């Protein structure tokens, strides 16, 4: 019998208080230990964590690498695995290894196995894949079942990796199959937090709303932070409390967090339906706890899955330089465009394999296009050159040529004839590795619920 089966067998129903402990919204980047242990001491019935995101950009999905360092990921896995096994409660981890593709899942599975061996723990592990076959997306596009989310042209044929965000369906199947620990590929942030309450009979609206807030742990507090967060579900609502006494969940901080990273402030869409937050209420229980209720769940007629794809672009090299000369700063528009032309003369871009060179001028417009120039010009400007080329050698050559042109570029009124740049480190060109771009960020509409079984296969392992 699994940890979940034992919980379900003794569970009296949704009127009993169910404690869900959110260990981390970014497992692998360092779980604050004191708050997590305070949460464990409260004897949660479920421990869940999110390990990934699309926010760090396309490089992790494309390359199959994790954003977290393996040693920190191992530390965090040891923390949650030991606690879950000691309490004999389900442990659910979503979006393994940042992007949740096959290689990310394999990397984290291997770390988890090594932690389990070291701690001498035995349990049933379920891994859930989230890779979407290219052919399935191509068929969906032909049949009009692929919808963009925001401005992006799909590039299915060039995608080197495609994942889909699984919802509660696959997690529920893994729990029903006897898993004590679930390690999932790309998943909705909410799914690992919401699935156990829903399976135990708590209403879906509040369960998913709870998960939406809890998945960022104490970010919903004042002051916000990364400490573990506890939700206690009871009846048709739930109470939130940070496991760090210095962080307070207030009606305003929690209501505001429900907006975070969401284009739609009142609806959160999942593969199985959506939750409507427009009637949700947030009431203070005391100075640092909030009771929430009123979210309403609507089942979808058929499932839909958010998919993410990455395509390979080439290799990236960056160059860095500082400037303090006011004449150069004043003329930098003309200088940079002159340098770009000079580099293009030196290293002609092949029409079928062009290179790209971008300059960012920190102090002027490195972050934003300001509507008006500053009243006083900046004293110093930092220039970051980014070159992406089909191969590393070309990228290095373009970046080095750009640096050398910038260093000795002549301009009217120039005083600094010794050189225009303060080179901060040497070499000033740094190889940033393979470069990727997002090729898909779309909704894939499925015809049947069973299609979710094929898309997110559950594999059980005796550890």
């Amino acid at each position, binding site marked *: 019998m699994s940890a979940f089966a034992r919980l379900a067998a003794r569970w009296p129903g949704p009127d009993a208080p169910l404690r869900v402990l959110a260990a981390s919204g970014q497992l692998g980047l360092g779980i604050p230990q004191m708050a997590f242990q305070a949460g464990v001491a409260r004897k949660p019935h479920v421990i869940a964590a999110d390990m990934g995101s699309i926010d760090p*950009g*396309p490089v992790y999905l494309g390359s199959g690498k994790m954003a977290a360092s393996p040693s920190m990921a191992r530390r965090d896995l040891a923390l949650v695995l030991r606690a879950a096994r000691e309490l004999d409660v389900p442990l659910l981890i979503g979006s393994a290894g940042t992007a949740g593709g096959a290689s990310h899942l394999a990397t984290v599975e291997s770390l988890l196995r090594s932690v389990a061996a070291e701690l001498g723990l035995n349990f049933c592990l379920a891994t859930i894949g989230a890779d979407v076959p290219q052919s399935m997306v191509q068929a969906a596009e032909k049949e009009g079942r692929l919808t963009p989310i925001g401005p*992006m042209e799909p590039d299915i044929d060039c995608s080197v990796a495609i994942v889909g965000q699984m919802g509660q369906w696959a997690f529920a199947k893994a729990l029903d199959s006897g898993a004590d620990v679930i390690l999932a590929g790309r998943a909705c942030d909410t799914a690992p937090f919401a699935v156990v309450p829903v399976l135990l009979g708590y209403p879906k609206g509040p369960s998913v709303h709870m998960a939406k807030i809890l998945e960022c742990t104490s970010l919903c507090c004042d002051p916000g932070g990364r400490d573990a967060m506890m939700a206690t579900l009871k009846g048709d609502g739930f109470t939130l409390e940070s496991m760090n006494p210095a962080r307070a969940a207030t009606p305003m901080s929690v209501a505001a967090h429900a907006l975070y990273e*969401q*284009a739609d402030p009142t609806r959160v869409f999942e593969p199985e339906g959506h939750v409507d937050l427009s009637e949700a*209420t947030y009431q203070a229980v005391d100075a640092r706890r909030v009771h929430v209720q009123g979210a309403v769940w609507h089942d979808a007629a058929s499932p839909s899955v958010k998919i993410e794809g990455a395509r390979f672009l080439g290799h990236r090299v960056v160059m860095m330089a500082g400037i303090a000369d006011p004449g150069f700063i004043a003329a930098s528009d003309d200088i940079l465009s002159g340098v770009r032309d000079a580099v293009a003369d030196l290293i002609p871009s092949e029409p079928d394999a062009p290179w*790209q060179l971008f300059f960012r001028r920190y102090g002027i417009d490195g*972050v934003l296009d300001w509507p008006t120039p500053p009243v006083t010009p900046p004293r110093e400007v930092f220039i970051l050159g980014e070159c992406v080329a089909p191969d590393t050698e070309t990228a290095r050559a373009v970046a080095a040529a750009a640096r050398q042109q910038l260093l000795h570029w002549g301009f009217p009124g120039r005083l600094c004839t010794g050189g225009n740049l303060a080179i901060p480190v040497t070499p000033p060109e740094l190889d940033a590795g393979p470069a990727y771009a*997002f090729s898909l*960020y779309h909704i894939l509409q499925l015809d049947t619920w069973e299609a979710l079984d094929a898309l997110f296969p559950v594999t059980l392992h005796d550890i």
Partner: protein
Amino acid sequence: MVLSELACVVRSKNAGPTLLTIDVLFADEATFARGSVALTAEAVAERYGHAVENIQVIAVPAARAVKIVLPRAVPAGTPGDRDVYGAQQHALLLELAV
């Protein structure tokens, strides 16, 4: 008065790699009312150099918040992108007259 003096939070973040969302939060009803009037789609479009039809402005009274949604110039992490997480794109709004 400008927005940075009126609001208690002005934050930006990606809403997925294609969209940017800016949340402006206010400490009380009076500042929320004043901020809501100033934060029009036209005013935001002008600051960000976007067509007004690309800008959504949604008032969320329960959180005393105004949410703004706009498309990113390029998807997050594309070569030339200047802000992969979209976390510093709020700054153009700070000097908006309210």
